[in-house]
């Protein structure tokens, strides 16, 4: 079974990585578009005569934003679109394990987005002369992986539970998009929030990941000082992943009994 899951995941990830990167235009767009928006933010900081650390803070958050959008539009609404195009029933009737399909979507998306996030970060570092600490790059990378694990597990939960929303998934995605970016403090440190909000925010994988990376790369702190972030991210990841596997099972069963797997065109 495990073997099957990984085989399916590999195939799904392959399609996704191949599909997006075979087209150079897409690649340029994917890096160029966020870069335009991020540049505006950095210039806004400059107009405020903000200390240069703020530029680094925004650059890291801005680069990480892509993952959240990918979780929403590449994971959460994905099954909905696959159903619209008629692929979903095929997946299910093929007997390929659905967790494998989801895992593949997540892996593929994560790889694609990582390339883009690094691209955006490097471009801003170069264009705005941002300074980052690189001494803790290995722990930072590890933190990054934990963040993705938690984030994409959340994405898998969304993907299976959003199937019931029909065309309104895009509405839900839109509603989740900016608020989550806001509470994750993509452009500013979450320390500006009141303490109560900070507590809630520390349960958001994206917020934790961004915060942790800023500590390591902007403020040059050591990983030991932010050990709690690692631990919370790991726990969140495990819990989300567990819930996700349950949700997929439930979704498959429900879809088969109610027939909602084939209803199209809303």
């Amino acid at each position, binding site marked *: 079974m495990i073997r099957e899951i990984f085989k399916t995941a590999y195939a799904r990830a392959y399609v996704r990585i191949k599909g997006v990167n075979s087209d150079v235009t897409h690649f340029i767009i994917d890096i160029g578009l966020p870069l335009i928006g991020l540049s*505006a933010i950095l210039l806004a900081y*400059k107009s405020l005569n903000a200390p240069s650390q703020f530029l680094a803070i925004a650059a890291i958050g801005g680069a990480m934003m892509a993952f959240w959008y990918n979780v929403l539009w590449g994971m959460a609404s994905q099954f909905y679109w696959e159903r619209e195009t008629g692929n979903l029933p095929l997946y299910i009737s093929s007997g390929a394990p659905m967790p494998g399909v989801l895992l593949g979507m997540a892996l593929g998306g994560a790889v694609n987005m990582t390339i883009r996030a690094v691209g955006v970060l490097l471009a801003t570092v170069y264009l705005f002369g941002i300074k980052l600490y690189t001494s803790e790059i290995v722990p930072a990378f590890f933190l990054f992986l934990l963040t993705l694990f938690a984030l994409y597990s959340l994405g898998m939960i969304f993907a299976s539970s959003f199937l019931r929303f029909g065309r*309104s998934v895009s509405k839900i995605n839109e509603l989740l998009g900016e608020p989550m970016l806001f509470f994750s403090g993509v452009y500013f440190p979450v320390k500006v929030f009141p303490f109560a909000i900070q507590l809630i925010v520390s349960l958001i994988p994206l917020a934790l990941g961004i915060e942790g990376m800023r500590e390591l790369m902007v403020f040059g702190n050591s990983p030991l000082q932010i050990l709690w972030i690692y631990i919370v991210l790991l726990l969140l990841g495990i819990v989300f992943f567990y819930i996700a596997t349950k949700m997929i099972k439930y979704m498959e069963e429900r879809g088969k009994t109610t027939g909602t797997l084939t209803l199209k065109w809303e």
Partner: protein
Amino acid sequence: MGIRDSLTKLRVLVWLSYQIEANWTRLPSYLAYISIRPTFTLLLMIFIVIAARPNPQYGFFILVGQAFYNLVGSGVMGVAYTLWDDREHYRSLKYVYLTPNSLTFYLIGRGLYKFIEGLLPLSIAFFVGALLIHYPIFSLMPNWPMLIANYFVGMIWIIAFGLLIASFLIFTTDYGWAAVESIVSSLLLFGNVIFPTYLLPYPLDAIANFLPIKYWMDINRQALLGMSTMNMMPNFIPLLELSLIYFVVAFFLFKYCERVARSKGLIDITTAH
């Protein structure tokens, strides 16, 4: 087509846009839905100010810029996205095209709705933002006539941008999104929205002078602060000129592209999905 006729049709088009946008849920949820995104986008910007320099005067620039920028984004989308959605999703562009109406007229009518709808999120975002940076908005004495005039001039150039994008969209189904988004976010970067344009590196700063949005944003700020109409003319005149130029160019470009699309048989193309 007479003026009365056109007005009736515009009303119907606005009605259709409203139906398509709003009738998936009840009115209160819909109003909440359209306000949440703009408000949080504004919060993202406002907290930049709060984090870096909690000063109401600095905040005002960003506050007004971002609140009004929402209108730009949704207005441009309202025109351009309709073309894409009608063709790709509803498969009805062809049938609309076959009716004795100009496509330009149809898209403008459908887009107009966004300007009405957009007033609500604009106001909400503005008040929430002002509250957070402690800006004394109730002591503002806006120059209402100019603010309102500016709103209508805004329609002209924003619709023009929508038509410019539509001129491109009519040929393609693949890069539709990217085209819309790159233009809309370029307007954020070059449009005097969240920072003054002189901060742009040379020679990019010159671009802003040729964009109506630069003057439009300034007038929004000045009108809110109650500047006299006379003093706003140095911004208002170039705004009017540019808006008209953009509109005329966009209008004819779109007409031309529509004809080319007809000659290539692209009026009813769709991606297979």
